């Protein structure tokens, strides 16, 4: 379980997060929605320690993440980045098994390659893709490889940062389905940030809306359409009129 308690993050005078409180129960899929520039990615990076919060506490299974042993802590996570963030200089299979080729989880090269091929198959890519380089792949294939890398070490917690950005609706649907299947199959805790409502409906068990640096609304996906929250209603229906200023 991940608990965020009163998380603040300032960049100079810009107060991006202004007291975020959120709990993500174990083995549930939480989707955080919100407009562009509302701090969704910053929140996710705060949990991973890529960005240090200005104040507040982040607990993972009751332990403050600041006191956790860094390698062991990160070994519990997998992450799919918005642009894939694949390493250009490495082949696809080396990208997928990056964590398994070095460090505490190191496996023999042949075994790592087998795992890579298996994970690529799991995300719908053929074994011959393993030898290609990221620059030789389409955007959709890069997302799938990123997804294969995120699940390669079978993490307990997986983060998805805008998993469908830049994809056509069909490929976005494929990625959404894959995420849902994989999260269910692995029993992983998932946290996804997106402003794509089709992703939200496909992936979420619970939804939280981030606006003005705080969690404006949170609840199960079943209550998304009748929440009665004007901010959420405006966002999910994509209306220009409402409490959220269209020009920011």
């Amino acid at each position: 379980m991940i608990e965020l308690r009163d998380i603040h993050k300032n960049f100079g005078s810009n107060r991006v997060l202004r007291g975020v409180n959120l709990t993500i129960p174990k083995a549930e899929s939480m989707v955080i929605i919100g407009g562009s520039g509302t701090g969704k990615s910053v929140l996710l990076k705060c949990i991973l320690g890529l960005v240090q919060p200005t104040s507040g506490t982040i607990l993972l299974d009751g332990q403050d993440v600041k006191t956790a042993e860094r390698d062991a802590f990160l070994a519990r996570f997998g992450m799919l980045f918005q642009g894939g963030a694949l390493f250009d200089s490495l082949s696809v299979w080396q990208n997928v098994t990056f964590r398994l080729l070095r460090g505490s989880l190191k496996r023999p090269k042949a075994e790592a390659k087998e795992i890579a091929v298996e994970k690529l198959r799991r995300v719908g890519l053929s074994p011959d893709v393993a030898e290609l380089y990221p620059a030789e792949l389409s955007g959709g294939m890069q997302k799938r490889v990123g997804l294969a890398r995120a699940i390669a070490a079978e993490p307990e917690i997986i983060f998805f940062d805008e998993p469908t950005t830049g994809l056509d609706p069909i490929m976005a649907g494929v990625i959404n389905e894959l995420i849902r299947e994989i999260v269910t199959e692995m029993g992983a805790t998932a946290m996804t940030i997106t402003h794509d409502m089709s992703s939200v409906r496909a992936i979420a068990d619970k939804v939280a809306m981030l606006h003005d640096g705080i969690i404006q609304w949170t609840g199960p996906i079943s209550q998304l359409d009748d929440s009665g929250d004007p901010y959420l209603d405006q966002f999910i229906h994509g209306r220009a009129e409402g409490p959220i200023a269209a020009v920011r």
Partner: protein
Amino acid sequence: MTLAAGFLARIGATILAVLAAIGRVTIYAADAASHMVRPPFYIREFAHSLLTIGYFSLPVVGLTALFTGGALALQIYAGGSRFSAEAVVPQIVAIGMVRELGPVLVGLMIAARVTSSIAAEIATMKVTEQIDALTTLSTHPMKYLTVPRVLAALFVVPLLVGLGDIIGVMGGFLVGTEQLGFNRATYLKNTVDFLEAIDIWSSLAKGAVFGFIAAVMGCYYGMAAGRGAQGVGRATKSSVEAAAVLILAANFILTSLFFSA
């Protein structure tokens, strides 16, 4: 009065910004040095850096040294002839190349070729979130990206400098013997007899320092890059400027240390 105060405030702010930048670079360099002696070590990345910094720099270093050595011989001959001292061409070419021009020109070529390439590569990795991805995959960016490049530059730039010295002297030899009429055996004997061990050691030591500076600057500015294509461009430009200036400043300091009476 207000104008003067504003002027002084601007000078003060600039000085503070420069000092802060020096502080950040120094901390980064010290951090890189401390990671060099602590595992894990990434041998594959180190070997790859040896190849890209060393082997692939050979043509540019060789050609630069060759033409500079030749031009130096012509200049010394022309200058020396004004007071009947043409005979000193081999000695001055040797000392000029080995003590100064070899290390400085190789250092500047490395700054142009390697520092820019490191900064652009790492900056691109930063803006495409590859650095964040490294961290989430339990890999320290400093150990994976910076240490192999800095270590490789420390090892390989002195070798490039040594090679540049030899090729530069050979450039002078070719011009001296083929164009200026020097006897080959005499030219070589004068060159070898005139050089001392300190000339060679100082040259190689300068190479190591310049290699360290070039690689650290590339990594630092790459890691500190701002967003987008502009961020990558700015990081690349700043890294080369900083590396070139620091190499020239370090050259002055090292020359003072090695050769001041």
